[in-house]
């Protein structure tokens, strides 16, 4: 399937979704219209779920996101939960800058809400 490769902008993150095994979100997310940015991403994951790899690691490395984006990120995670429950081997890695307690807490909250293997990964600035 076609690779989704969206470069970062001032208000949207870099997104790479490559069915050969590279799945990542990097940067900040504060678009005005979150749905128009995230809907194609959710659709892509939905299609990927029909024929996923033996194992897939989705890396989330946000530096900032607004509250409207937080809902869309949950939608992505719930989609991954759905694939996981359907038998796919899915893992989520939540990367946060080690001093960024808010981003760490956001990851912990998501991992409480969704039932999908979830690993917290701290990195140095």
């Amino acid at each position, binding site marked *: 399937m076609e690779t989704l490769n969206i470069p970062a902008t001032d*208000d949207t993150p870099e997104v790479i979704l490559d069915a050969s095994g590279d799945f990542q979100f990097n940067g900040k997310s504060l678009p005005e219209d*979150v749905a128009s940015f995230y809907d194609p991403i959710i659709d892509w994951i939905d299609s990927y779920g029909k024929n996923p790899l033996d194992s897939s690691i989705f890396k989330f490395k946000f530096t900032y996101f607004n509250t*409207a984006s*937080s809902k869309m990120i949950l939608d992505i995670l719930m989609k991954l939960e759905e694939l996981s429950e359907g038998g796919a081997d899915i893992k989520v890695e939540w990367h946060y800058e080690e*001093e960024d307690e808010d981003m760490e807490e956001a990851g912990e*909250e998501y991992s409480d809400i969704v039932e999908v293997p979830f690993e917290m990964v701290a990195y140095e600035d």
Partner: protein
Amino acid sequence: MEDIQNMPELSSYMSYITEFHQGMQKNNLILVYEGEVTQEVTKAFTALAERNLEKSDESGKVTKKVYHVMVECLQNISKHANDTSSVGSNSLEKGLVKNGIFVVGRNEGSYFVTSGNPIDKDNIESLKNMIDHINSLDKDEIKALYKEKLKASRLSETGGAGLGFIDMVKKTGNKLAYCFKKIDNDNYFFLLRTLVTRQ
């Protein structure tokens, strides 16, 4: 250069600007904006804030929180300001471009972000109840409410998740201060101030 001594209108305008500047200094204001709040404005201010705060000795934690509150406040105006009321109808693009005032200040103890925008009378009560409720909660209750809303809320028509106020309190640990000033019988001006404590 023109001498403005004999130009009373210009002279009074210049005096006003001088007073305005003094008023800003007196109130510790570092940014004042009046006009349409668009996504472009939001991006410009947050970029400016990011750069200024990076240059200063402010801790990264505080910087991020100020940035966060700024984004939520600005997007609050652009999304939720009243576009049906006569005073708030300067929308270029209905529902997206709104008029308001946006102010950032700083004193020794904290940053304060204040937004103001028109709202029609009928929306006051629900807004007031929502803020009062959020203000009545302790830290753990705020976290629980945030999680509950995150799970339950569908995006509203204007694209917000209804989480903005809760998240502002959750991230800053401070209560929201607000008031409604009457403009005319149907319209009020809604002012909201959020503090970010400097550590």
